[in-house]
């Protein structure tokens, strides 16, 4: 059994590694290290076109294999065009009388000749339009969403057809759904209220997991390692937690000591306690978003650096060594992909559990204090 899994992982890796590697097999005039660093930087960022890999042809020109994605900008009017027009930042695009240039994965408004002004720290100071483009990440979100929709819609349908028993791929996903229900939602939220939160927990778990796994494929998307994505997810957890918060939840924040003390004794304590509790409301989702972002980002950086090392060593000792390390890290990353999805779901469920706290729990809590 274990050997089978190992063989499968090996197969997955064989598919991942060479493709990721081929993406940067590109000998330019630039220093190798800088080039790899730039490549990693580029990989970690979102991009406006879906490039599978790039190479330098015999003519010394960069060639990109991939496809364009739509660019949607708002700058005194809507501008929509294909990202291919940028020619990977080499050309200025004119749309409705405005000029745009792609610089370091970001779109800036420029003049007709595409001048970029810099401040003393070499940051571009040009105006940025409101960028609502369908970027690589958005494209992957759509793909993942469609995949999830058809996968779980299919799973739901097999129940009807097959008399309540899943078939096919559903046999793999059903235990995970049940695990989230029985080991994440039920113990943390409570038997009475967990149903309400199940759709969010399931969706967020599979969404993060699938995107994490996609991040390890040669498609090279780093969606969950993007702060905007994790912020959006954590904000949803934040809103659900606070909008479904019961009276006891708010009481716990603004009156944590309850009736255990006269009000005059509580005042000096509350000057410290209430700000901490209120801060906690915001720190919880913030730690969620930072954790997911940092873990995925760090995983990608380590993995890509190790792959990059192979091209720096270029000898019979260093390269196999870094290959072995990259392989090991890849295996760990597969685990981390699942673990981070689990942690995000688990902590979300925990926060929902605090919010949906029942009165009898609060009573027990008060009784405890009185008992002390």
């Amino acid at each position, binding site marked *: 059994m274990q050997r089978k899994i190992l063989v499968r992982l090996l197969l997955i890796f064989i598919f991942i590694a060479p493709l990721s590697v081929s993406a940067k097999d590109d000998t330019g005039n630039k220093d190798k290290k800088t080039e790899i660093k730039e490549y990693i930087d580029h990989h970690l960022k979102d991009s406006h076109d879906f490039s599978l890999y790039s190479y330098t042809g015999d003519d010394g020109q960069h060639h990109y294999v991939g496809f364009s994605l739509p660019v949607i900008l708002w700058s005194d009017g809507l501008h929509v065009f294909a990202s291919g027009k940028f020619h990977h930042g080499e050309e200025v695009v004119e749309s409705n009388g405005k000029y745009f240039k792609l610089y370091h994965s970001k779109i800036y408004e420029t003049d007709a000749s595409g001048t970029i002004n810099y401040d003393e720290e070499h940051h571009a100071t040009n105006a940025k339009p409101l960028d609502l483009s369908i970027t690589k990440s958005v494209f992957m979100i759509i793909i993942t969403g469609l995949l999830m929709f058809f996968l779980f819609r299919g799973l739901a349908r097999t129940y009807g057809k097959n008399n309540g028993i899943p078939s096919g791929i559903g046999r793999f996903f059903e235990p995970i759904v049940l695990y989230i229900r029985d*080991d994440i939602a039920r*113990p*943390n939220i409570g038997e009475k209220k967990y149903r309400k939160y199940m759709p969010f927990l399931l969706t967020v778990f599979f969404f993060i997991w699938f995107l994490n796994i996609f991040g390890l494929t040669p498609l090279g998307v780093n969606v969950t390692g993007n702060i905007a994505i994790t912020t959006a997810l954590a904000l949803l957890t934040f809103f659900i937690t606070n909008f479904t918060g019961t009276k006891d939840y708010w009481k716990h924040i603004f009156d944590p000591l309850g009736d255990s003390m006269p009000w005059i004794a509580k005042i000096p304590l509350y000057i410290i306690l209430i700000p901490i509790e209120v801060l906690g409301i915001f*720190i919880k989702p*913030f*730690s969620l978003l*930072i*954790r997911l972002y*940092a873990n995925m980002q760090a995983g990608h950086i380590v993995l890509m650096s190790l792959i990059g090392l192979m091209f720096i060593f270029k000898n019979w000792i260093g390269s196999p060594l870094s290959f072995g390390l990259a392989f090991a890290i890849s295996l760990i990353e597969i685990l981390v992909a699942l673990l981070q999805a689990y*942690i995000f779901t*688990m*902590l979300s469920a*925990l926060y929902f559990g605090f919010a949906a706290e029942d009165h009898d729990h609060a009573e027990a809590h008060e009784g405890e204090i009185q008992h002390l």
Partner: protein
Amino acid sequence: MTIPAIVGAGLVVIGVGIGIGQIGGKAMEAIARQPESYGKIQTAMLIAAALIEGIGFAALFAVQ
């Protein structure tokens, strides 16, 4: 990015590592002692580890 900041962040990460290691080790001991409370211990361990991890990330991003 200055050298002292990086060293400071490194120290924080060492502290975080020790902290999470302690939590993990103690959780293992607790599970060994009371295997029936496995689920509860694991949940508490994850929460504590997650909170400490947050400090580590805060240090790293402060340096960045």
